[in-house]
């Protein structure tokens, strides 16, 4: 048989229709991305709540996505963990995990919104208000901003002193009632609840009071310094 002259023959072009139909369906789903993604988020969120296997992570659209600016997820054991509070303070302090856990604690439940679009509804964190740690260390009058450093060795963030003193800016060590897992920035991370996720430094190792605000890691790539959810980065999300 001579394949080169194979006659497509009679019949309906079903293959083409299926092909174009599926491509069109994909394109429509891209265009409807927001609603589609939010729907899947809800499904995934409710499944993940009862999931012990971690398989619900396979469902697209839902829940957390994990980012790191270094090659892998940094790791520090609970025993080895230390948080330094230094710079322009009267008494530079180093806290280990029990020392941090012994501070007056506070809990917060907020949506977590990423600047790339995903949002996790009603996330429950607990930890210590940053303002309480700042007061305990004694902020010197010439300090105007706070810098955050990560033990990944690369990531930095910063807030004005006024932002840092808000009651919804926390140093957190639990997520949904459990120690914060490594991929979520554990054992200790920041939670700047009213701002996009990049403002909440993961794998927090140092808090420094400084005389002048300096932009953090993502701000040097164009993200907004004042990363309020819904009022920055050209986005219109519902504030968290």
């Amino acid at each position: 048989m001579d394949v080169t002259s194979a006659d497509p023959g009679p019949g309906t072009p079903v293959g083409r229709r299926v092909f174009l139909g599926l491509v069109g369906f994909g394109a429509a789903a891209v265009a409807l991305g927001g609603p589609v993604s939010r729907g899947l988020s809800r499904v995934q969120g409710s499944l993940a709540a009862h999931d012990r296997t971690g398989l619900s992570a396979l469902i697209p659209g839902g829940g957390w996505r994990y980012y790191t600016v270094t090659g892998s997820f940094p790791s520090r054991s609970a025993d080895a963990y230390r948080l330094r509070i230094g710079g322009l303070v009267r008494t530079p302090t180093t806290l280990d995990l029990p020392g941090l856990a012994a501070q007056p604690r506070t809990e917060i439940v907020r949506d977590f919104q990423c600047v790339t679009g995903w949002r996790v509804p009603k996330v429950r964190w607990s930890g210590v208000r940053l303002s309480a740690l700042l007061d305990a260390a004694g902020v010197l009058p010439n300090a105007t901003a706070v810098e955050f450093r990560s033990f990944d060795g690369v990531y930095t963030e910063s807030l004005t002193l006024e932002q840092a003193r808000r009651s919804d800016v926390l140093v957190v060590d639990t997520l949904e009632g459990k120690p914060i897992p490594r991929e979520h920035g554990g054992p200790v991370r920041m939670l700047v609840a009213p701002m996009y996720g990049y403002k909440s430094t993961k794998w927090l190792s140092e808090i420094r009071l400084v005389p002048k605000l300096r932009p953090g890691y993502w701000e040097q790539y164009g993200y907004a310094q004042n990363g309020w959810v819904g009022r920055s980065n050209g986005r219109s999300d519902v504030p968290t």
Partner: protein
Amino acid sequence: MSPPDRLERFTPVERFAHRSTAALALVLLGTGLVLYLPSLSLLVGRRPLLEAVHVVAGLLLPLPVLLALATPSFRADLGALNRFSPADWAWLRRRDRRTSGLLVGKFNAGQKLAAAAFGAGGVVLLGTGLMLLLPTQLRLPDGLRQGATVVHDSATLALLALLVGHARLAYLHPEARRAMRTGSMDVDYARREHGDWATGP
């Protein structure tokens, strides 16, 4: 030339296109799953390397098919995959499809639908992949970026299911698998499964 008891089924270019597309798809799936699943990410790390491999494999993905498109035999096969004959509809409907003596052409209806779905899946994944690769250069609004993310993930899972089925059928039909590996198919098998093609002009 194949011996008299074997029928020429796929050209070397077609077999090369199949094999290199399969290899790229496996690389994309492996790197993609590691980047996507937190438990695997924690095990493997090396995200920048995995990202680079994923992106390069993705950009190469359409090349084997585009190369094969330059050959008349591949274009003829695409034509055959496109058209549904009355026998194809009957093949889809009937439970005794493999024993009822239906005169199926070079490809059965399942192969035709799978080809269309693989093609569409590839286009959707490549398109959304490019959107995720260059969101700022393409000036994508947030909604589209979010849509591209969720569609890229969902299409991957759909295509993964299709690939598992594809591999299962290849395993169940060694002669069909041999045809893709060697280029030729046993005449008796061809008469049974692709009667209209085996006895064709």
